[in-house]
Structure formats: C-alpha cells, structure tokens
C-alpha cells in the first residue's frame, strides 16, 4: 500500500471528519509496513486467483486443481521401517546440519535417478535443493537483475510465475504445440531481441510432459533448441519433474544430456517419484553457475533437511525405488485414461484438450467466450475445482483454458469431477448460444447434438453425439 502523504503531516494526527481540501491522511497500520516493503513486492503476484484457489482445498470438493502425487500408495510399513532405520542408524546425523550441496549418500541416489533417464552425471556435481522449486529460485537469484529477460513457454508452470516476478524479471512467453515449445518462434524472438540489443538471461522449459500443457518437446526440437543455445551461448533451465512418469511412447533424451551440461541447468526432484513431503530436489549444470547457486542456497537455508536426505538414501538402499515408480505409473496411466475418456464423453466439440504421454496434467481449452476463472466459481458450487488457465500466463492469455490434474484423485472422482465440469461448461455454452442467437448444444452423453446451430431441429432428428474434436496442429491456445 503506498499511501501518499505529500503534505508531510504527522501520520495519525487526529482530524476532523471533513478536512480541508488538499490534506491527506495516512493509515498508520498500512503505512507502517508498506513503507518498508521492497520494490519487488509491487510486482510479486501471488499465484493468481489465490483466494478462489484456497476454496478448492475444501474437503467436499473434488479437486482436479492440485498437482499432488498419490502419496497414499506408499506402503505404510516401508515408511515405518525406513524411518526406523534412519532413527537408529543415523540419530545424530539426521538431527544435524549437513553440507550446503547435500549429503554424498543422497547425491549418489540422484545420479542413479538421472541414469534411469539416460543422463549420466557425476554425483559430485549435484547440488541438492529444498524441492525443485528452490532450483528455480536459485537460478533467478544467480542470473536475474530487475528488468532482465526470461523466456518461458506459453503456458508456463504457474508456480514459476511468482518466482520470476519476485526477481522483477521481464518474462516473454513462447507458444507451445503438440511437439512442445515452438523453437522457430523462439528463434524469431531471439533475433528480435538481438536487434534491440537485448539478451535473455535464460530460457525456462518443462520439455517432458509439460506443466500445465501436458505436451512433450519432440526430439528434433530438443536437438534444435540445444543447437540454438550453443550457437548463441544462452542458458536453459530444464525443469524435469515428470520424466520418469511416462505411460506410453519412447523416452526422449534430456536437454542436459544432449548439451553435455555446457548451457543447460537441469532441475530434478523426488516430489513426483517419491514424495513432495521430503522437500528434496536437485540441480546439475555448468559448474560456475552451480557454484553461485550454492552460495545463494547458503543464504536461503544453509542446507536441505538432513533427516529427509537420509530417509531418501535409506529408501534407495532398499533397492525398490524403481518398483514404486512403476506402481505409480500404473496408477497414473489408468487415471489419465479415465480422464481422457471422461473428457471425450462430457465436453463438446467446441472444446479441445491435450493427450499427455506422461506426467500429471491435461490442458483443456474451452470456447473463447468462456472465462475459466469465472467458470471456477460455478464449478465450486458443483464441488469441483481446476486451475484456471490465466495462472499459466503473465499477460492475461489463457482465459478460456484450464489445467486438470489426474494423479491426485481416484478414478471415480475423476469421472465425477469431469462430468460436473462438463455440466457447467454446457450450461455456459447454452447460455452463450441463447445470448447470441446461435444456440449450439454441446455433446452430452444423453442429449442430442445438432450438427448445425438449430437446437429444435436436432431435437426432432435425435442426432448422435458428435465425437470430441481436437484442434489440429495446435493446442487451441489463444495467441496474442
């Protein structure tokens, strides 16, 4: 709150009810804090729609809004046994500080996880962090001065937005399609910036099973992106939380492995393959960058939890981490399929959605006259929630899209949740049709669907529901 007090009067001085024109009153309560706030707080956006989103956590809501892994599938007895062994074998150590870069035992586990995706790293080069989120923060802390440019995808991970904003970065978003980030668009943007004498500090991408888009960058685009950054000597932050959660198709090499670690900073995490509760992620990348990130981490939290690092190390010792990832993949693949089926059944031909080969999210795009932030209010009345698309853009785009999560709730809830979303969407489509006089019924399981804008005729003919149609060659993101 910036309350001007240009007349220089003492704040809080008692005043008559109607003071003379030109005098100003400051509110002490507000000013006391506001005067102390850093300039960056003015651009710090809480993850958009925070208040609305808070309602999605109610217990009577089917929330397809979260990004939660199904931690309930972790066997309680294994958890108890591992915790027990840590408590007995490493009492003092687990209760103690550790090195900033992380415990050596954990770094070996990390090298093992990365090798599983075909990315070979030396355990010594790993920086252990407090969740993957801290990597985003540390990369910004290391590279970003106010006004510096970050290139991200459109849409981008909503959780990265507040971080970028709090470092006062200028974020430029590059479109996505079914093959991931549009590298041609990226190159055009880089050329344009070049002409303006500007250079992005880094390019932020979630190449595999993108959050929130659900798409995966194709191999040719990965190769081209690496060529581009090597030619231009630009850094990439490769955020890869979901790479091991592939339900179909062949694995693709990480950008880090294609580049060899010269220009790619890699972000990994245990959140989606084990637990977000352990708050452990990591980074590998060019050594000078990692060294600065290490210093940044010292300033942030000295070190990540020794207790959870030892827990994860003990868990890896048991040699069953791949089995657990495999079981998660089975669960999530079924849930994804249930969600895709439900979408095809419950959303009409005017909507489109992505078909992720892995990860946790599906990105749905509704007709452009529907604003998903407002739709969320209606959906909450029906006890279902999603993330409005605007949260994934910094420029107001994404208004008619939404992110759906399929990992955090059971199959029955996914079916029911999508059915309810279908209901509220249908309601709005019909209302819009009524308002514009171009009524188009939306495909419903037990309702006739007109092929042309004439509901009455369709009623008479009992046309079968139209199959869900997906946009060709794009995700249906509204451009610019």
């Amino acid at each position, binding site marked *: 709150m910036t309350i001007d007090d240009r007349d220089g009067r003492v704040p809080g001085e008692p*005043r008559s009810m*109607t003071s003379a024109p030109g*005098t*100003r009153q400051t509110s002490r309560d507000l000013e006391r804090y506001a005067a102390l706030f850093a300039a960056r*707080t003015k651009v710090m956006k809480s993850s958009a729609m925070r*208040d609305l989103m808070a*309602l999605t956590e109610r217990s009577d809501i089917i929330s397809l809004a979260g990004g939660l892994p199904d931690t309930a599938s972790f066997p309680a007895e294994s958890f108890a046994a591992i915790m027990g062994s840590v408590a007995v074998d490493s009492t003092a150590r687990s209760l103690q500080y550790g090195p900033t870069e992380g415990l050596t035992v954990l770094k070996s586990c990390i090298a093992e996880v990365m090798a599983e995706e075909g990315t070979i790293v030396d355990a010594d080069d790993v920086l252990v962090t407090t969740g993957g989120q801290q990597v985003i923060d540390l990369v910004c802390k290391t590279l970003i001065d106010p006004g510096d440019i970050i290139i991200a995808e459109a849409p981008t991970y909503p959780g990265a937005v507040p971080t970028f904003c709090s470092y006062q970065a200028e974020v430029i978003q590059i479109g996505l399609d079914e093959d991931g980030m549009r590298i041609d668009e990226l190159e055009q943007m880089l050329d344009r910036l070049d002409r303006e004498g500007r250079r992005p500090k880094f390019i932020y991408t979630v190449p595999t099973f993108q959050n929130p888009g659900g798409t995966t960058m194709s191999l040719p685009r990965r190769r081209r992106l690496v060529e581009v950054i090597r030619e231009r000597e630009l850094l990439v932050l490769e955020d890869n939380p979901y790479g091991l959660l592939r339900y179909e198709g062949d694995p693709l090499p990480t950008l880090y492995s294609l580049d060899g670690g010269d220009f790619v900073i890699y972000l990994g995490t245990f959140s989606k393959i084990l637990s977000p509760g352990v708050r452990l992620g990591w980074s590998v990348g060019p050594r000078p960058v990692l060294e600065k990130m290490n210093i940044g981490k010292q300033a942030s939290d000295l070190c990540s939890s020794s207790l959870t690092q030892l827990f994860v190390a003990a868990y890896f010792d048991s040699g069953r981490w791949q089995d657990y990832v495999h079981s998660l993949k089975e669960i999530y693949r079924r849930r994804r399929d249930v969600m895709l089926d439900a979408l095809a059944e419950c959303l009409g031909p005017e909507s489109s959605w992505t078909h992720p080969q892995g990860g946790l999210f599906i990105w749905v795009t509704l007709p452009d*006259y529907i604003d998903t932030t407002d739709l969320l*209010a209606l959906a909450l009345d029906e006890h279902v929630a999603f993330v409005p698309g605007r949260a994934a853009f910094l420029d107001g785009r994404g208004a008619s899209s939404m992110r759906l999560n399929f990992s955090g709730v059971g199959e029955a809830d996914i079916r029911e949740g999508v059915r309810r979303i279908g209901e509220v969407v249908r309601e709005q489509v019909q*209302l819009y049709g009524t308002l514009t006089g171009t009524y188009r019924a939306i495909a419903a399981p037990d309702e006739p669907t007109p092929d042309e804008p004439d509901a009455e005729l369709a009623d008479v003919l009992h046309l079968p529901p139209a199959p869900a149609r997906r946009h060709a060659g794009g995700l249906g993101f509204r451009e610019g």
Partner: protein
Amino acid sequence: MTRVAVLKGGRSLERQVSLKSGVRVQEALHRLGHDVVAIDVGHDLVRRLRGEDPEIAFVALHGRDGEDGTVQELLEALAIPYTGSGVSACIRCADKVIAKNHMLDAGIPTPDFFAFNETAFKELGAADALPAIEQRLGFPLVVKPAGQGSALGIKFAASVTEVPGALVAAFSYGDKVLLERHVRGRDLAVSVLDGEALPVVEAVPTEEAFYDFEARYEIGRTRFVCPAELPEEVTARAQELALQVWDLLGCRAFARIDLMLADETGELTVLEANAIPGMTETSLLPMAAEAAGIGFDELIARIVQLAHL
C-alpha cells in the same frame, strides 16, 4: 468482559478475506478484554453457537450467507445479539439490484442499469432486448452479478460482441445480473458508523485499468487516499448521499457505501452498499475510521456496543 463469538470464513467466495477480517477482529476483541471464541462457519454453526453460548456474535463474514441476511436470520432464531445490520438491511444491500431499485425510487442517483434473471434470457428471449439496452447504456458498459460482494465477476464490455461473454461470466456467480452504464471517474467509498459519515476514501488503482479483485485486497496494488482530495462540497455531498442510502436501506451500526464521481459531469452516483465491509489491513472502513480519529480497537468496541437482536 463479554463472551463474543467471531463468525468468519464460511463457504462464500470471499472466504479468505473474511478469515483475514475475522483474525483482526479477534485480536482487537482480545485487547479489549473480551472472551473471544472464533467460529469458522460451516455445517455445525448452530451446534457450535449453542455449545459456546456467546453473549454476542460478531459477524465478520463477507458474501453469500454471511452478508445476505442468512446468518443474521439464524442468529435471530437463536436469540443471539449480533453486530451490524439486521436481516432486512442485509437482504437489501447484498442484492445490488434491490438496492439500486430502492435508490431509484428514492431519487438517489445511481448509474442507469437493467437487471435480469437467467430465466429472462432462457425463457423470455431477453437477448433480443440487448441491442436496445446497449443503445440506452452506451459502451463500454459494465456487467455485474447482482449478489457478489467483491469485484469477482465484474466485466467491462467495450462493444456489442463482448456483451454475451460478460453476461456468461457474471451468471457464473448467481442467477441475477445487471448491465450498468459505465461511469468514468473516481472511485469513492464512504463508510458510515452509527449514522455518522466517516471521511471519504478514494481508491486509485496503481497499475490495472480496473479496480479488480486482487487489487482490492492486496497491499501495493491500489493506492488509497483518505480523506480523499475533493472540494469540500463534493465531500459533503458524498457523505450526505451515503447517509441517505444508509437510512433508505435500513443499515445499522456500520456499512460502506461505494460511489463514483464522474469525470465529465462531476456528478456523484451511488454504486452499492456493503452491509459488512472488510476489516482487513487494506480495508476501507477501518481506514476511514482512523482518519476520523477512531482507532481499530475503538471501532470494534463501538461495533460490539451496537450489537442488537
């Protein structure tokens, strides 16, 4: 020492704001030496009230249920004295259409508007009347849900093509919406405490074109000036209008009346009345009270004294 139950939270879309208001009220009540019990309003509200047996209920709820007379009706039924306006005033304030119709009848200036239920469009072909409405109100026009207390769902339509989308958005929040003439001008709020108008607050958006939902509650997004820098007669007129609306709608204890001062004509019009305005750090009622020399604790003490059945 009085045993006061602070009712907060609930299921409305303004839950988070209410939680903030509630905590602040609780703290003030503690400082004032009251015995405070906080209740996050839910299915067990009546049971909790019976169990806690408060002497007074402090209603720190915003939006649906808390501000529209529902909770007040329950408190009447339980014979627990409560803060703020009574059932009927809450009903009149919570529904912008009812409030504006009262103002129209009483000759209090309020921006021109047309209001419809969803059924008017679905069953009476109201869409066919849109061109006539658009002509009467001009562009841009504002589309609002009748019952939403915050800025949620409020849309500007700059042209004919944007009206249907704006209506669809507004209907997300309830089954009654209004289309209103857009008044370009300054955003003023007059809080009233026990029948007396407090200094006028002006809300000046710092970045967004519109005083949106986030700006309203987030520190740093809107600059507030209190007392607003206005000619003396404008201040007096704004306060006079606010008191007229207060009387007209039958408010008690406290309320906030929102007005616009038109750039072009210099005319003041009343947008709406809020029966339970926010009590957060960025809220306008506490700010106005402070400008009048009434600190937050004193404000809360006054409101508690005015609790009634």
